[in-house]
């Protein structure tokens, strides 16, 4: 069965909720912009990217780096910057959260752009953050082995 990666617009955002969302976003920004340089995509996956906002990537990739990362980890578009996924990988390793990088992140729902992620999680539009990861190395191993067995 193919993966289902489209986040559909359910439940739809009402005009009233949008106003409320903007109010919450004000407070969310106070935390997330200085801490993570949040780009306000409204569909936060910070917890699976080792708390570095992947939307800083010029291509806004949500599933890992493109093929252009330099040997020193530089971004191909802005060579003076480090590739954000390069940083995510090394911090994931440091925080023992590599197994989360194996997860395929859904296609971005552009209707959620500039809405409050906290409210979207509460309304169950998007997945809740994954705060703790135990036995990261074992999980990666299981993922690979599980998959080999599923095929056979």
């Amino acid at each position: 069965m193919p993966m289902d990666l489209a986040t559909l617009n359910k439940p739809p955002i009402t005009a009233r909720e949008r106003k409320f969302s903007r109010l919450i976003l004000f407070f969310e920004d106070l935390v997330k912009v200085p801490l993570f340089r949040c780009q306000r995509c409204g569909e936060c996956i910070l917890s699976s990217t080792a708390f570095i906002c992947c939307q800083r990537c010029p291509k806004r990739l949500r599933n890992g780096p493109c093929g252009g990362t330099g040997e020193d980890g530089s971004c191909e578009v802005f060579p003076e910057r480090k590739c954000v996924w390069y940083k995510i990988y090394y911090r994931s390793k440091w925080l023992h959260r590599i197994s989360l990088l194996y997860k395929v992140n859904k296609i971005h729902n552009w209707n959620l752009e500039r809405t409050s992620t906290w409210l979207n999680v509460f309304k169950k539009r998007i997945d809740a953050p994954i705060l703790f990861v135990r036995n990261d190395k074992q999980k990666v191993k299981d993922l690979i082995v599980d998959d080999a067995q599923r095929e056979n």
Partner: protein
Amino acid sequence: MTLREKIESNRFILCGEIGPPQSCDGDFIREKSRHFKGFVDAVNITDNQTAIAKLSSIASAKILLDEGVEPIMQMTCRDRNRLAIQSDLMGAAALGLRNVLCLTGDYQTFGDHPEAKGVFDLDSIQLIAAVAKMNSGFLLSGREMKKPSEFLIGAAANPFAEPFEMRLIRLYKKVNAGARFIQTQPVFDLETFSRWMEKVVEMGLAEKAAILAGVMPPKSAKTLLIMKAEVPGVKINEEYIQRMKNARDPKEEGVKMAVEIIRTLKQMKGVRGIHLMPVLWESITPVIVKEAGLNNA
């Protein structure tokens, strides 16, 4: 035999590549196809590669199909949102195209329209999943199609870019999303490539998807130097550049080098084929195929 059947029957695959012209000249494709017909299993048609506006990959692939060469249409996420991608894929399926290579696409500032808006609505992994979904009869919206597509899905991999493990994670995601063949960046660093290949086999990915190693015959030392300086994520061993510089006939040396690399790759465990990229030098394909002893098609 189609490419899908060849991959399923475990034959050694050989692919070529044609870059469409920056004009409305369809004969350009017909002419180039002659260098490949009867020598390779399928030919990639690039989709506005390096972000330069070119003849569309779907139209070029159709021309190639009419010439009797099996095309692999490339599809990038830079120029299309999810509506355009699905509509183009349906159109391609209706024209009889059966192979699609899913790519994210080079960033627009590398091309001739650096002022353009890049779309990147999907990324390559999500695109693979979207095509797989269309193959199962559904669009991204969840709506059912009366006639599903039957694409053989391909993807690209770069074994040479950093971080090494992240490349394997990306490959894992691509294969699990539905990619059935993987084309790699040109190999000019056999040591890194064999290290990568070992891991790919260990993870069981080489069984689920056919790994086609990229090979590029260099025309001169300058080609290699330009690639090293300007193409991000390409690793070229100094030894190869020196060899090209010292060669009396650089073209002959380039062919010799490509054949040598192909022979080594063929011995490697897990490599199921070669993806030949004779950039601006398509006419050399038959020579390389003959010298490397790859009598395919």
